[in-house]
């Protein structure tokens, strides 16, 4: 168990290689309950890989990752159980194409016996209401716009009642006019106290809701701090260089 109950995510000396390519070189970080951590950095810097190591979609090569006090790098940890408490939202939505919105949301909690069919349904309808898609319960993913798909994907993750949410460039695949509706849902989630790690290029979102911004490059954390510190007064030349390109 972690010494501090407030610590939700604790990463120590994480390294990850794909074959001979070392993608994460030595990552350590902590995220406490209710924090919204925004990860920025150039493409290929290892942001997605870091996020995917947290729920072990990628296996860490070395180092330790504690989630909710469970060591997910330990073979004896039931990773499926830990994942039930970590929602993940993907760049390309990954809605289950063969199922309608309601089924997309209720499949996992019902199969894993977290909720009865009826409760899962009721909860799904409440969540759809919250993301503004009550009328889409019976729709199939192919009938939704990108922004709608991503809101459903967020609702699907929330249906499991997670206490951590991971977002990997949730708005990067969206048409510009749909970015706002997805960010709005995420902002509300942040205000409600969800612990979040968000990879994004939306600097405005980071300014508004991040408790901390982490800048990554080449598999290292280069700089981290409050949005003001990192975005407005960056110290590291590489951060300055990166921000000058995206701002």
């Amino acid at each position, binding site marked *: 168990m972690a010494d501090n109950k407030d610590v939700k995510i604790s990463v120590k000396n994480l390294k990850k290689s794909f074959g001979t390519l070392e993608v994460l070189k030595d990552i350590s970080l902590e995220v406490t309950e209710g924090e919204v951590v925004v990860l920025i950095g150039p493409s290929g810097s290892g942001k997605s890989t870091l996020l995917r190591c947290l*729920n072990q*979609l990628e296996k860490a090569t070395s180092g330790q990752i504690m989630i909710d006090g469970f060591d997910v790098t330990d073979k004896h940890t039931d990773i*499926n*159980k830990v*994942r*039930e408490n*970590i*929602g*993940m939202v*993907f760049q*390309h939505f*990954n*809605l*289950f*194409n*063969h199922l309608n919105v309601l089924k997309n949301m209720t*499949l*996992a909690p019902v*199969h*894993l016996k977290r909720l009865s069919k009826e409760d899962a349904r009721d909860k799904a309808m409440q969540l759809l209401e919250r993301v503004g898609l009550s009328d889409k319960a019976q729709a*199939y993913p192919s009938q939704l716009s990108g922004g709608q798909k991503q809101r459903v*994907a967020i609702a*699907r*993750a929330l249906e*499991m009642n997670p206490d951590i949410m991971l977002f990997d460039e949730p708005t990067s695949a969206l048409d510009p006019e749909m970015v706002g509706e997805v960010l709005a849902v995420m902002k509300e989630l942040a205000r409600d106290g969800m612990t979040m790690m968000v990879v994004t290029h939306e600097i405005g979102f980071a300014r508004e809701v991040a408790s901390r911004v982490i800048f990554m490059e080449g598999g290292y954390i280069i700089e981290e701090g409050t949005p003001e510190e990192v975005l407005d007064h960056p110290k590291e030349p590489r951060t300055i260089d990166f921000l000058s390109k995206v701002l």
Partner: protein
Amino acid sequence: MVMIIQTYGTMLLKAMGHTLLLCLLSLVFATIIGMIFGLMNVGHNRLLNFIGTVYVDAVRGVPLIVLAYFIYFGIPAGIQSLGFTGFKMDALQAGTIALSMNCGAYMAEIVRAGIQSVDRGQMEAGRSLGLSYGAGMALIVVPQAVRTMIPSIINQFIITLKDTSILSVIGFPELTNVGKTIMGNTFKNLQAWAIVGIMYLIVITLLSKVSKRIERRINRGR
């Protein structure tokens, strides 16, 4: 022609029945074999991958006729030489095994390709919600894969139906074998083989029509 139909009509229909029986049994087993080896091939266990690949390559690399001879003559001979002198295998059993193994290897490839055609993100989304690999396969990946697999499966079923004729060589009284008998009795080469050919054609046409209908229904009901 009429004479042949009058004299050999029941015999031909019975032979058709045998052909269908052999085909049906083989398709059932082949589907099971295909599922098992196909799933072995897409998983991440090296040993299972290896076994799956060896099976598919071995069976596809041996002509069906040789496989049939091997199972019908070779295996019993081998078992008898081990001292089980009473061991026998009839032509239907041997034929079903040979055809199931053969069709199963192709089905395994269809299953593998079908599963690999489903975007990796589907499984990842399932796993990220806490589903096991097996549950992700069963509830998310396979249902989507089946849709893309159906045309190839139908095609394979038709090939297998036609391949039953190869098993005439081990003496199973299916349609082609009976065709040979009729030809031997009547010496009416043209008529006998025309009738047999037309019978295959009718059954295969019906099979394709039924399959097309099933395919349409599955594509619609989603």
